[in-house]
């Protein structure tokens, strides 16, 4: 079931759109913001709310790389793996992250604190290598700064 709050937020997006189903990505974003990820049940709920079939909603949900169709931890780490960051040492940063967290790309720490994901160019190439945690952008990130950054996220 969508909560009243979720429904209200989705309706706010729909107000700008001539067609209800055009709010599909907005609805997925709203649900994910509240629940961290989008479950099969949420896909069905969104479909019902927008007058679509669950398959239609899922075909959209699975297209977009930042809609999570599997559970993620409390904080998602998005590590840029594009060209400028790669030049500036992204592979070392990934090694470092994997060691610190004890997980590989696509995995979640056992305490559910972090999920480690790679992402295309974050538009912060002048601060490479860059990463995002939740809504916060960091760069350049190196061995000296990484621990201090991770500590901010419980």
């Amino acid at each position: 079931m969508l909560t009243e709050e979720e429904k209200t937020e989705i309706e706010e997006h729909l107000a700008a759109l001539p067609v209800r189903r055009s709010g599909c990505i907005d609805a997925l974003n709203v649900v994910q913001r509240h629940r961290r990820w989008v479950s099969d049940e949420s896909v069905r709920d969104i479909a019902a709310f927008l007058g679509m079939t669950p398959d239609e909603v899922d075909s959209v949900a699975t297209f977009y790389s930042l809609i999570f169709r599997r559970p993620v931890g409390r904080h998602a780490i998005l590590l840029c793996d594009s060209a400028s960051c790669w030049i500036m040492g992204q592979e070392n940063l990934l090694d470092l992250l994997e060691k610190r967290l004890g997980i590989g790309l696509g995995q979640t720490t056992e305490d559910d604190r972090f999920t480690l994901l790679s992402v295309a160019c974050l538009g912060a190439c002048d601060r490479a290598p860059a990463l995002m945690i939740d809504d916060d952008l960091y760069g350049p990130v190196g061995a000296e700064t990484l621990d201090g950054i991770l500590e901010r996220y419980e």
Partner: protein
Amino acid sequence: MMERPLTQHIVPNREPLSAEEYEKVGGYGAVRKILGGIAPQDVTRMVKDSGLRGRGGAGFPTGLKWGFVPMGDAAPRPKYLAVNGDEMEPGTFKDRVLLEGNPHLLLEGILVVSYATQLDTAFVFLRAEYKLAAARMRQAIGEAYARGWLGKNILGSGFSLDVHVHTSAGRYICGEETGMINSLEGRRAAPRAKPPFPPVVGLWGKPTVTNNVETLCCVPSIVVNGPQWFKNLSRGDDGGTKLYGVSGKVKRPGAWELPMGTTVREILEEHAGGMRDGLSLRGFLPGGASTDFLTDAHLDVKMDFASIEKAGSRLGTGTTIVLDDETCPVGLVLNLTRFFAQESCGWCTPCREGLPWLASILSDLENGQGRASDLKILEEHTRLLGPGNTYCALAPGAMEPIASALKHFREDFERHLRGKRCPWRSAG
């Protein structure tokens, strides 16, 4: 002093100007001027005369595009604007500077194009990760409504406009203009077949202008100071200034607003501070991931559309990725190709099937498992995936770094083949 119409009111690490502050420094002057009695067609003509070309990558003349929108009482309504703030081209970080730094300048540009083409509703399409940009844009839109710059009957002119922010959810292909239109309709962002082109048939089947963030930020100054003033800002044939950027192993990576047509050398050496100590320049991608490599033989080329094209590449987004001599060109091309393979929307076969294959060949080469025939296969594909064989420019764009790397760095590919390893990685 050098004129900087795009960034004059941007101070790094400071909150952007509020609507009220922006008005005090002359902001929304372009809107006052046009609503005070310039005909829409005349606004479009000014933009045509200014020589402004799109800053989103393709360099399409902006005024010409606006001129394709059906006008008059018989035109289909509503008409839409989709502002392209997807900015996912690797190496590109210029629209972020504008979105975060001065959202009211973009709104002013939005108002100008919307009046010129008499459209009703604008969507600002922002990539998912631009959270700060989205927050500042929403704040600015709220202020603009409150002060009467948006909404019904703006300045009593009878002209009305609504602006909404759409935040995306990932995928580079959303930046392709018809992919963006599908995405705004809530669909998968596969591009649409063209024609029809968006100015005639776009969002929900209605006429839709698509423009890049930086393009629209150029527009207010054209209206206020005139097309000739804008033309004169440039050192080349295309009008205006350009927000150039540099990333890679230079001393001071960053973005700077400079006259259009500034030379590569001035940008790399004066503004980016030159290469880091001990490193030298091997080559550079002048305008983002989907442009051809140029080399140190091209340092005196002007960074404008025509000059860069003559040198064998594209201005693209005008943000340069620098390749130094301690970075493996094959590894860089592999990284770029993996990106394009991952971001292919999968609609056309050459792109969907070809890019992963090319990535796997490049990966073999990089890891010392290349075959003698690989370079020929790569070369063939730069033609097979080139212009004319796919629905959108993603695949042809992906071929530009490969084709040009095979030209300029052929010896490096061959060293990988001969030595059966990457010369830039330590043995073992």
